[in-house]
């Protein structure tokens, strides 16, 4: 996976641009999508509470990696969505959290693996590993540079359009 900052900045750029076409998708909803872009990296909870320690303590297998899959982000998005006040905001939140976390999985889907196939991102639907072009590794600095530039360009255009169109 790329670093979380890159995922969050790219989600900002993507949802801000989509917001130009969808009137309700303003900044307060774009930030919900940015939060969704963090979800697959909640696997790093393993740095705080190790999988092995949980497995040994409970006597059952446990792997945080499940959170960086389709099944994991669906459940995490649903958890986030129920914390919104009305049915309408819950649906919007679910859609944006899922879209944000899906953008993360799509970007992860093209990172480098030595055998040319990715992790099992479709779990639990399938353990199939998509072929990857191997465009980057997570420590590549150019990924963050690209994300920062994308976010700044979109922010500048958004500011200009907002001023031009009189939107708040």
């Amino acid at each position, binding site marked *: 996976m790329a*670093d*979380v*900052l*890159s*995922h*969050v*900045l790219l989600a900002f750029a993507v949802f801000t641009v989509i917001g130009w076409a969808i009137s309700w998708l303003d*900044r*307060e909803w774009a*930030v*919900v999508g*940015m*939060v969704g*872009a*963090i979800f697959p*990296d909640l696997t*790093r909870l393993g740095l705080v509470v*190790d*999988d*092995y320690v949980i*497995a040994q303590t409970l006597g*059952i*297998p*446990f*792997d*945080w*990696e*499940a*959170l960086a*899959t389709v*099944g*994991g982000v669906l*459940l*995490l998005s*649903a*958890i986030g969505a*129920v*914390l*919104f*006040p009305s*049915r309408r905001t*819950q649906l919007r939140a679910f859609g944006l959290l899922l879209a944000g976390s899906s953008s993360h999985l799509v970007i992860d889907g093209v990172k*480098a*693996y*030595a*055998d*040319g196939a990715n992790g*099992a991102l479709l*779990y*639990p639907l399938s*353990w199939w590993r998509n072929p990857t072009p*191997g465009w980057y*590794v*997570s*420590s590549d*600095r150019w990924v*963050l540079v690209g994300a920062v530039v994308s976010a700044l360009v979109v922010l500048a255009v958004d500011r200009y359009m907002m001023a031009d169109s009189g939107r*708040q």
Partner: protein
Amino acid sequence: MNHHRRLLAAGLLLVLTAGLCVHYGATYEDNWPYPTGDQLAEEPAGWDGERVLLFGEVQERTGSGLVMTVDDDAGEVARTITVQGTAADVERGGVVQVYGMLSERGTIQQAESVVVVNRNPGDSQYKLGTSALGVLLAAGLFLRYWGIEWRRLRFVRRSADDRGERDG
């Protein structure tokens, strides 16, 4: 959705998420096409003659490759492997993925493809640091636009006045 139903729904979804992590942990070894560190430790010669993908921490560079350690679930060294046939630019403490054939009771791997995940320990710190920044950015922006109503356990929109912005 009232407070009690929201709490129940979030609790059920959290249990399902934990269940997904348990299922992933229980089924990973059967579905991942390559040996884990635990499997290599239990059956060192079990994959001799097979092409496998391994993740390892570089211990030293050699004339024709490198020496890496592969960990088990507990984080202990499961196998020390001499990788031959790579000139990958990586330092001691770096992390690599190696795809190639194992031999000599899992102690020699002939590299067909190597991906340098972390060139050195500094790359790992870089990823952790930028990821922490990403979480802070997303959480900070979210809390700028959404408040938490703890009594009813839900997010609520902040008004422009709450954010210190002015209409117009």
